[in-house]
């Protein structure tokens, strides 16, 4: 299994560099083994250099930069081992408009092999979808009901039903 781990890590390292570049339009994302001599125990470090900036520790990243970097790691895992179904709950909340678009572009690349179920309040993400499910409490009685979503009205407003 050491060989399998090494082979998977190598593919993940390349996938992460690629997804990072796409999401940040620049900079560099690297994965490093903390103990390369001991494949059974080693951990994995994430080191990033953001476009225009110097290499920094992860703690200094902003809220949006952290979310985008974590998304790059998740999408890299999905490239190495695709999952038929992925569920993401408001992963786009900290992102600004430009970064949401980059995130959507990356989703579209994986859309042929993966079904994405996204919970979101962000109307850029909502408008990018091909099916919409409205969840509300019509009777104001603490019980969830499923309602159709009027996407045309959403295009004007910025929030859901």
């Amino acid at each position, binding site marked *: 299994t050491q060989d399998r781990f090494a082979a998977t890590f190598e593919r993940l390292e390349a996938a992460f560099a690629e997804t990072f570049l796409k999401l940040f339009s620049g900079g560099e994302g690297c994965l490093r083994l903390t103990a390369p001599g001991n494949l059974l125990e080693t951990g994995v470090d994430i080191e990033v250099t953001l476009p225009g900036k110097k290499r920094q520790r992860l703690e200094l990243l902003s809220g949006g930069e952290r979310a985008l970097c974590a998304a790059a790691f998740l999408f890299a895992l999905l490239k190495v081992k695709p999952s038929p179904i992925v569920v993401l709950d408001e992963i786009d909340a900290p992102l600004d408009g430009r970064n949401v678009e980059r995130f959507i572009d990356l989703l579209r690349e994986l*859309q042929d092999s993966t079904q994405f179920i996204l919970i979101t309040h962000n109307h850029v993400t909502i408008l990018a979808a*091909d099916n919409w499910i409205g969840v509300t409490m019509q009777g104001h009685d603490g019980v969830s009901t499923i309602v159709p979503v009027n996407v045309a009205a959403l295009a004007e407003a910025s929030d859901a039903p």
Partner: protein
Amino acid sequence: MRLKRVRIFGFKTFADRTDIDLSGNLIAIVGPNGSGKSNLVDAILWCLGEANARQLRAQTSQDVIFSGSSKRRPVGFCEVTLLFDNEDGALPVATPEVAVTRRLDRAGQSEYLINRRPCRLKDLLDLFADSGLGRAGYAIVGQKEIDQALAASPEERRAWIDEAA
């Protein structure tokens, strides 16, 4: 393989029989705060065998059963069914559709079913072992969890790589 439908009864805020059609490859779930969107994610996780109540924002396993509201009485049990399209045979079951069901009542009686036939939790976990939807799966990311990949220790991150190996 893809998830075609989710059928819920009595799970958290889904007190009524609810049938959700999940056609399409980029599905947006929208709605006001507190309306039940994350509860739907919890329903999927629970049906796939999630055993840790904290992962479901609950303290006891029965906390997932609808506990009543200002106008509605509590219900006695909850049930979630996930209907998968298995045309491509990705799931090791010989039918073009696979229905996975989990049921729980207030007495703590829990039951798993594959295509309406009772099975053990282990059979259900084996069914999804190779699909990325497994227990340590990176494929379901809950609200505010995205930060964890970065906040995790190097050793914890390694576990995801083992899962993908």
